[in-house]
């Protein structure tokens, strides 16, 4: 019988974005999976509500859970509007950026209508205060449900990501020309550091996140970025 601790992970790309072929380095979740019995529910681009639903359904199965609290503005589509992107992935949550990107390649009329309505939502309807309040209420509710829960906030992770971007001198136009192959949006070094911090929490229940604990990447630009074809 497997006596490893059972760890459940919930969240977005900061816990799930992986480029198996282009970047073979281990992300923090893969490090954890070598040591513990990990089940990863995270999916790129998803919302707090998406992860909350999965958490509520599954958290009792785990000794410890890790929840990446993503940006509060991500929109969770109702099931009737789920559709497949050009690579066959189910689109169930959207941001203004992802909606814009998907609209460029959109072939099916109904999918395009959904995407346009999402863009209109962000232009005319979105209530940022409402989304922030609801996101924090949802997360507080999780804390009351599971004592063994680690919350890692998007705002903290994005600081590390941006610190790396500054190091590599990426500007606003960078992503129009290049593809970013950092696993979980972080370099190998910072994935290691994040793994160590999470591992420390699993062992001691102590978690400290400071941008000063993270480092400038030791790999070169070419390890992570390629020109778009």
């Amino acid at each position, binding site marked *: 019988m497997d006596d490893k601790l059972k760890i459940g992970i919930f969240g977005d790309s900061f816990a799930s974005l992986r480029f198996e072929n282009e970047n073979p380095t281990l992300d923090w979740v893969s490090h954890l999976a070598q040591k513990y019995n990990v089940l990863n529910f995270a999916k790129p681009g998803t919302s707090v509500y998406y992860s909350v639903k999965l958490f509520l359904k599954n958290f009792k199965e785990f000794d410890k859970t890790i929840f990446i609290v993503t940006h509060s503005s991500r929109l969770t*589509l109702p099931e009737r509007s789920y559709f497949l992107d050009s690579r066959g992935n189910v689109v169930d949550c959207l941001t203004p950026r992802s909606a814009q990107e998907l609209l460029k390649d959109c072939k099916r009329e109904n999918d395009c*209508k959904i995407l346009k*309505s999402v863009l209109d939502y962000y232009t*005319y*309807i979105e209530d940022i205060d409402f989304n922030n*309040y609801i996101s924090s209420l949802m997360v507080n*509710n999780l804390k009351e449900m599971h004592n063994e829960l680690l919350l890692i906030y998007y705002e903290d992770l994005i600081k590390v990501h941006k610190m790396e971007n500054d190091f590599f001198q990426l500007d606003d136009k960078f992503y129009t020309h290049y593809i970013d192959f950092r696993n979980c949006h972080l370099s190998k070094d910072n994935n290691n550091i994040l793994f160590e911090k999470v591992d420390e929490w699993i062992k001691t229940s102590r978690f400290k996140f400071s941008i000063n604990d993270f480092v400038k990447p030791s790999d070169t630009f070419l390890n992570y970025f390629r020109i778009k074809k």
Partner: protein
Amino acid sequence: MKIGIYGDSFTNHQVVDPLIDNKFISWVDLLKKKYTITNFGKQGTSIFYSYQMFQKTHKLFDKVIVSFSMPVERLMLPKPILKLKNGAFAQHIIFKNILSPDEYDMSDVYTSTIVNALSKYYLYCYNLDFYNESFKLMKEEIIRQRSDGLFVADDLIRIYKIENEYYNISIDQLLDRRTCHLTSKNNFLFAEIVSEWITNNIYEFNKDKFIPNEDYNYYFK
């Protein structure tokens, strides 16, 4: 003693009928005669409106009375941006009504753009489960923060249904002149039981006392 009241039309609502001098007094206004009351209730508002008002103000009050009587489908927009035909601007909508937007001034370009965006949002993106969960969390948070409060929505809606059944009316067919959706008698009765709670912390609701006895024509046209 300072009392704060939060809610929608069940706590603050008066039908404006230019042909009739409306003399019906709401249960909240009756309480105002005896106590220092601030009524944050507003007709047509969503739970998020009450939630925000509550978070900003509830600590100022010795007692709070909250009515979660608003429908889940009622949404608050970031600003009052929808121009109504009467020239006023609306900040709240009920989703199912947005598909036949008779009350809005669609000649106003901005209003028609927003209404169009809202109807598409309702068709393609509206996630009722998400709004149900949000409503539940806001309600639970208010109750958690003020477990000493009085939560009256269930009883107010119960009275409203008793009256509708008594008068055999279906909603939206008539001009309904009931203040806070209750007959005059029931506004008085409800004010009495709330007053008892304010003074003695005893709240006893007996639905049988709320059978109306006033004439149909008094309230409905």
